């Protein structure tokens, strides 16, 4: 041991030890200085260049949305204010929230450290503890999935009052404020709309729950579920093969099923169709259905269920091949083949109400549709079309033209009586095409697909305080305009030719050198 200590002492005081100590000291100093610099820049950022701010002034729609708001609302971010300004996504959300609070005096912002659970109370002039744990469950008592430092809490009234109305917007890196395309790239920013709808939510007394069915291959678009959240719904899933429609369900959504619902021929077993029927008849439950006209098979039970309620999906079956009729509307077409077109509002009360809800807010009621199927409303049915193709439209199935009458319904609505002891009617809205409520359609400039969906939720199902007219900022700069796949292939070939040429030249040089 003494020998070892002597050796260590010799090393430490010798040249090797001094050099090592100096090296370690220099490294630690550099790292420490970098950490200091990082903490200094986290508050403001030392940016030689910043991208142009994508967040413009608010659209002004919130003036109407918040008309008559009579209660204080606090938007609580679970990150410190300096952190919010440290990266592009957070700073974008921060800017919108700040602008909203400046425009509406009843809205204030708080920034709470999620881990220390403290924030600075300006009235008390000291740090106070924020009850973060309270917001891990929503007002129904259900756990908020994904509750973390990126969640945003909206509170009406005193933020420390245990009885105040609140809503938690869970998110991962504020993803709830953005619309993503199918590749997961940010497509648009919906900050004003999301903040406005959440503030409206806590000011409202109605907080309905929408259930989305599972077990039939349903593939949900995140833009659609975000729209439902902004429309004021709690969202949950239900598997009708295992359970009844929950008692708190105010809206049931069947979104793009690819397999049929269970049914019983002789009624001996309680099935999904039975549960669906009882939900609508015995409780006056509302139903939203989105079907994909490119589905190459019939769903006999489910489609029969809808047919009884006034909605038949036009299709043909030939030589064992099942093809649904898809609408081509060249008169209103955006694409040359007419499959992408601007849908028209039907001439009936509910369709006009839905349209007026959009136009009276200064937004043009222009709904973009693509690859839509034809809904046939049987004679004598009380169902009505909401969106239609023009009179010059045609339908095609299996590559063949099937009909030329035009004026086809692509979205329809029905309002049917429930049991006599139920004091509300059951509403059904059917959209025969997934594009109308897709991310691409709902944020495309110049069209009002999202406002249309909000209006449907409002007039069709009674949801309130829709954020109609709020601005979606589309990151058009990132989308290639006028770029075709053939151009992509040409450019790819040019790019890949470079390493190929280098490889060939290199091989020639190396081989020649070897055999010189």
């Amino acid at each position, binding site marked *: 041991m003494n020998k070892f200590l002597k050796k260590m002492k010799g090393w430490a005081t010798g040249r090797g030890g001094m050099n090592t100590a100096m090296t370690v000291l220099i*490294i630690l100093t550099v790292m420490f200085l970098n950490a200091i610099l990082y903490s200094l820049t986290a508050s403001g950022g030392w940016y*030689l260049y910043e991208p142009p701010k994508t967040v413009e002034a608010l659209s002004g729609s919130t003036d109407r949305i918040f008309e008559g708001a009579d209660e204080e609302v606090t938007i609580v971010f679970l990150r410190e204010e300096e952190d919010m300004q440290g990266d592009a996504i957070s700073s974008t959300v921060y800017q919108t929230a700040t602008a909203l609070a400046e425009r509406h005096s009843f809205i204030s912002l708080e920034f709470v450290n999620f881990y220390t659970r403290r924030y600075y109370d300006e009235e008390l002039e000291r740090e106070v503890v924020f009850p973060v744990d309270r917001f891990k469950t929503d007002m129904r008592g259900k756990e908020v999935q994904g509750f973390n430092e990126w969640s945003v809490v909206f509170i009406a009234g005193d933020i420390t009052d245990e009885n105040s109305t609140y809503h938690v917007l869970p998110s991962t890196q504020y993803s709830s404020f953005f619309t993503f395309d199918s590749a997961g790239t940010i497509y648009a920013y919906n900050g004003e709309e999301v903040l406005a709808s959440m503030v409206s939510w806590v000011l409202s007394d109605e907080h309905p729950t929408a259930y989305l069915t599972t077990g039939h291959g349903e593939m949900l678009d995140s833009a659609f579920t975000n729209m439902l959240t902004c429309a004021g719904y709690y969202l949950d899933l239900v598997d009708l093969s295992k359970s009844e429609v929950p008692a708190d369900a105010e809206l049931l959504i069947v979104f793009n099923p690819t397999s049929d619902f269970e049914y019983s021929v002789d009624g001996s077993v309680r099935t999904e169709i039975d549960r669906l029927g009882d939900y609508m008849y015995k409780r006056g439950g509302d139903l939203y259905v989105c079907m994909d006209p490119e589905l190459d098979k019939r769903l006999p039970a489910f489609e029969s269920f809808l047919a009884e309620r006034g909605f038949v999906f036009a299709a043909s079956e030939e030589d064992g091949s099942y093809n649904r009729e898809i609408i081509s509307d060249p008169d209103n077409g955006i694409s040359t083949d007419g499959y992408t077109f601007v849908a028209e509002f039907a001439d009936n009360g509910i369709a006009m109400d839905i349209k007026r809800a959009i136009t009276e807010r200064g937004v043009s009621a222009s709904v973009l549709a693509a690859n839509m199927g034809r809904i046939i409303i049987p004679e004598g049915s009380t169902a009505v079309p909401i969106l239609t193709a023009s009179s010059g439209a045609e339908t095609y199935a299996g590559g063949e033209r099937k009909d030329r009458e035009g004026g086809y319904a692509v979205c329809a609505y029905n309002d049917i009586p429930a049991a006599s002891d139920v004091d509300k009617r059951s509403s059904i809205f059917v959209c025969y095409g997934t594009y109308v409520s897709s991310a691409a359609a709902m944020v495309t400039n110049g069209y009002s697909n999202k406002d249309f969906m909000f209006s449907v939720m409002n007039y069709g199902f009674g949801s309130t305080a829709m954020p109609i007219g709020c601005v979606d900022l589309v990151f058009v700069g990132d989308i290639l305009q006028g770029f075709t796949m053939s151009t992509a292939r040409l450019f790819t070939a040019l790019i890949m030719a470079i390493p190929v040429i280098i490889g060939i030249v290199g091989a020639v040089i190396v081989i020649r050198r070897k055999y010189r």
Partner: protein
Amino acid sequence: MAAIYKRELKAYFTGVIGYVFLVIYLGVAGILFATTTMFAMSAAVTNYYTLMLVFSAVMLPLLTMKSLSEERKTKTEQLILTAPVSLWAMVFGKLLASYTVYAACTVLTSLYFLLLVPYSAISMLVVLGNAVAMLLIGLVFIAVGIFVSALTENQLTAAIGTIAILLGFLGIGTLGGLIPQQYWLRFVFDAFSIFNRFQHFVWGYFDIASVIYYISIAAIFVWLTIRVYDRRRFN
């Protein structure tokens, strides 16, 4: 230093390794560019540069694994250590030679975005910022590679060791997510994560603090490499 630089650069292209690196790097970069932009109908730089960052962490060690380990293996490092060339010149010469090959690839692949200018409102300043960030990070990666190469005479060991260190540098930021309660520790991991700092550039911000960080990390590893050879010289 100039003589060493020229010799090293020439060595890349008299042998196979330079051409292999160029073909693989440009080939993969081309595929990534095509799939993340053109075939995705997007001019966003985010996905491309993020993937290139991870790819560079795996590719660059192949460029640096031979730089000093080969000298040690063939016993030619004695010539270098006794030559009238400072250790700084030796290390810098080798670093710059590797860096030249890498920088040429990075600049060329960044020019691919010019193809998209007629079809989008892409900001070439953002592309420039990302390219500069990639060049700085490449400097760090090469400095680490040369340091690890100085520690061993086995090229494979040098390559694997370098990849491990670089992936550690990239992944250190994710450790913060595993310890949410320790706020100060998360701050430390975020501050030293190459990947987290790179995100600023990806989003279009040219962050001076991150530039200083990258240069200082590269300087540290160059300094460590010189320390290693300084010890060997006197042992």
